[in-house]
């Protein structure tokens, strides 16, 4: 709309400028002719006096043309000229005058516009020399009456045309947006539809589609690699574990050899655990997994995890509490979020000395939907905070405490998968506060009844 207005004003300004310039040029031309006439008449007067001037005016008045003359005395009585009476001056731009006069054309009297100059002649006489500018005047009037209509037409047509065009553009942009949305949601097979016109939108769509083809190939490749790696490592690991189990079954269950093999099985399980965690992190981080997304209420997910860990905290003499804020549903994968939260709670319990507290909180803030775990443990030094989410990083030098060192990496990957942020900050007065902040765009409006804890 703003473009239409701008366009209309530009057109109006341009037209007006042209009009104004043309008019000035025409006026200047008229004025020049009049000036020349006056100079000529002035010379007559100088040579032959008033009588001579009147003669010349009279003789020139016989030619019917554009030129108009009137010589009158102080009481406006006509002495000579082709105007019947002293005219009513309607307009006096500069030292020129404009007026209407009547003139017979084809036997009818017609009111016409003229432009001229009044020149005082000694003896209280006045000389009016003018040119008929009626044609110019008509054009001008036509212009000024049609200009508003032209403007209105431009506005109406421009608005209509603009609306049509922008509706068409919006529709096509909308189609592209919708398709991209579906692709982001995980359906990589979607493509932007072309309308075959070959215009800029079609080119854009074509380029997008080509880009998508490439991304899809890459993602498929990545998934294939992940699957092959998973398959090719799990198959021998499976055989290894089978054999160890087989050997332990053959041995006397209480012998020291059996004990050794059982330890080997435990080591294998640890290896498998690490491998599974790595694979899950890689898949989640790359977004190649098509983990099912559904609206879920963070408070309910948190309540389930709290319930799972509550007996453990009792045993460790750590107080675990949940402060669930306004229930709000976000689009997410319950299993992944629960696992991330479980990892955070697990860490918090592990590092909080007995008598300490672990607080889980859900809250809707101006920045998004937050799920946080705060403990009263030693916290993480500022310098290490960005490092702890890297794979295999554990802060204690000995690496002897249980765990794979992948817990926080998985949390970070889950955050990434959900377009959420993982923020590690100081908990006051002491401890660590880990916050998963989901973007506002992930909020889903769900009728309250369908929001049930997935554990129900």
């Amino acid at each position, binding site marked *: 709309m703003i473009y239409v207005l701008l366009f209309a004003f530009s057109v109006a300004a341009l037209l007006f400028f042209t009009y104004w310039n043309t008019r000035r040029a025409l006026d200047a031309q008229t004025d020049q002719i009049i000036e020349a006439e006056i100079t000529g008449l002035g010379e007559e007067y100088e040579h032959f006096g008033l009588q001579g001037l009147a003669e010349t005016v009279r003789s020139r008045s016989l030619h019917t043309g554009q030129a108009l003359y009137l010589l009158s005395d102080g009481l406006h009585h006509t002495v000579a000229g082709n105007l019947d009476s002293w005219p009513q001056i309607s307009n006096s731009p500069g030292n020129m005058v404009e007026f209407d006069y009547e003139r017979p054309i084809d036997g009818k009297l017609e009111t016409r516009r003229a432009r001229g100059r009044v020149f005082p002649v000694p003896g209280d006489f006045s000389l009016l020399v003018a040119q008929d500018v009626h044609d110019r005047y008509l054009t001008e009037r036509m212009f000024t009456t049609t200009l508003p209509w032209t403007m209105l037409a431009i506005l109406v047509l421009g608005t209509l045309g603009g609306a049509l065009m922008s509706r068409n553009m919006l529709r096509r942009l909308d189609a592209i947006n919708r398709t991209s949305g579906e692709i982001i949601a995980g359906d990589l097979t979607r493509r932007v539809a072309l309308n075959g016109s070959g215009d800029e939108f079609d080119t854009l769509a074509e380029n997008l589609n080509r880009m998508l083809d490439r991304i899809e190939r890459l993602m498929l490749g990545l998934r294939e690699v992940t699957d092959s790696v998973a398959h090719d490592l799990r198959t021998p690991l499976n055989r290894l574990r089978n054999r160890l189990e087989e050997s332990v079954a053959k041995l006397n269950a209480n012998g020291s050899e059996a004990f050794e093999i059982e330890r080997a099985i435990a080591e294998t399980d640890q290896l498998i655990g690490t491998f599974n965690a790595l694979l899950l992190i890689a898949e989640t981080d790359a977004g190649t997994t*098509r983990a099912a997304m559904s609206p879920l209420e963070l408070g309910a997910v948190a309540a389930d995890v709290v319930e799972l860990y509550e007996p453990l905290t009792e045993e460790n003499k750590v107080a675990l509490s949940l402060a669930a804020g306004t229930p709000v549903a976000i689009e997410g994968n319950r299993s992944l979020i*629960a696992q991330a939260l479980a990892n955070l709670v697990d860490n918090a319990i592990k590092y909080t000395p007995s008598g300490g507290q672990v607080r889980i909180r859900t809250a809707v803030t101006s920045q998004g939907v937050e799920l946080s775990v705060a403990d009263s443990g030693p916290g993480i030094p500022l310098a290490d905070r960005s490092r702890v989410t890297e794979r295999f990083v554990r802060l204690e030098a000995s690496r002897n405490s*249980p*765990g794979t060192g992948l817990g926080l990496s998985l949390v970070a990957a889950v955050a990434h998968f959900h377009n959420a942020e993982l923020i590690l900050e100081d908990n006051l007065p002491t401890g660590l506060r880990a916050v998963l902040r989901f973007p506002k765009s992930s909020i889903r409006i769900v009728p309250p009844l369908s929001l049930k804890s997935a*554990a129900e």
Partner: protein
Amino acid sequence: MRILVVEDDLEAQRYLVQGLKESGHVVDEAADGETGLSLALSRPYDVAIVDRMLPKLDGLAVVAEMREHGSSTPVLFLSALSEVDDRVKGLKAGGDDYLTKPYAFVELLARVDALMRRRTPAGVKTRLDVGDLELDLLTRAAKRSGTAIELQPREFRLLEYLMRHAGQVVTRTMLLESVWEYHFDPQTNVIDVHISRLRAKIDKGFEAPLLHTVRGAGYMIRAH
């Protein structure tokens, strides 16, 4: 019980078949999807163990075909693929349970037993009994030797699951999957803590314990 094993990794197949036979089952085996499918359709099995990736006919396709032909044999998928979306695919194709390789044999056996138990529906039960322990599913009340036991909702579900599988080994993963609906292993073994809490409620003060720990496998509830 008659079990069908469809597994293309012959070493794994041999171990599986041997273990199942030692546990007292009759086992038929196939090394590719086509043979597996024709076996599955030719005679009734109590459980079919199907590898997810098979030559000739994919594991998913085998099970989908079985369901198409009206077979209701419970299927346990074995998969060496990455887990996140594969489990969902497997269950959608008509599988009843899903186990990722490498697995512990006790885990597999416990799941096979659970699937067989599911096969023989005992009608709609409103009461479960194990020894002198009773669980009323309608009033959600638990009693042992006539004495009422207070249970939290989750403890009730845990006990219900154990009692429905009375006399069978139930692994920690199975409990986590069925009672909590989590398909991941928490870093710390929280299930043990829940079990010891439940044990304190149902066994404390009684001479004969009902809830037993099966070493290296899981738990079992049984009367003597």
